[in-house]
């Protein structure tokens, strides 16, 4: 079984600044994927970034990057140059490899972006 823990219920960042959202996970699998999803008030879950556990290089997507520490089972999300549109709930999730890979989600972090 997999577990995902997000210990920050809420975070706040000023526009144009950088913020880091924390996530830790536990899994018995040797190969797995990690994801960050964004959920705005419309409730649509939008993929932000994903990381394959076998890759040592941290994934990056424009202003979004991760700090993947496999030994520590840590997977944090860094948002640079924060924008008002980044305000949302952010969920960390893990999944096994393969087609039947159900996702296990954390409880989410609500990100506020202020002027």
């Amino acid at each position, binding site marked *: 079984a997999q577990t*995902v823990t997000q210990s920050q219920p809420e975070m706040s960042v000023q526009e144009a600044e950088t913020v880091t959202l924390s996530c830790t996970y536990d899994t018995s699998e040797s190969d797995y*994927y990690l*994801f960050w*999803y964004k959920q705005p008030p*419309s*409730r*649509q*879950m*939008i*993929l932000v970034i*994903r990381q394959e556990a076998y890759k040592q290089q941290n994934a990056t997507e424009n202003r979004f990057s991760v700090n993947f520490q496999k030994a520590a089972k840590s997977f944090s999300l860094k948002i640079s140059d924060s924008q008002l549109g980044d305000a949302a709930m952010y*969920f960390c*999730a893990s*999944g096994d*490899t*393969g*087609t*039947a*890979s*159900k*996702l*296990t*989600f*954390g*409880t*989410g972090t609500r990100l506020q972006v202020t002027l």
Partner: protein
Amino acid sequence: GAGVSQSPRYKVAKRGQDVALRCDPISGHVSLFWYQQALGQGPEFLTYFQNEAQLDKSGLPSDRFFAERPEGSVSTLKIQRTQQEDSAVYLCASSFPNQETQYFGPGTRLLVL
């Protein structure tokens, strides 16, 4: 093409009523997942289909919950004799075979009174 669509977007049911929630996955996606998201929580897995085969239903909370995907495309999640604790957002997601990234629909918000 179009993303995952779900209908209805909102459903209010009286306790004891049966409800049916529909999911239209992205064309070509053979994998389809249902999740339940309670207020203030992350989504929790309910069930998984590969084409028309329901390969995992370990997350269904009771025998009142039933899902089907008879032709391997559209899926329906049915909840019989709804209870107040069934109130949640029900999310559908789909993916290509051997692709771990799931694409989510907008969800159906179910409120049981």
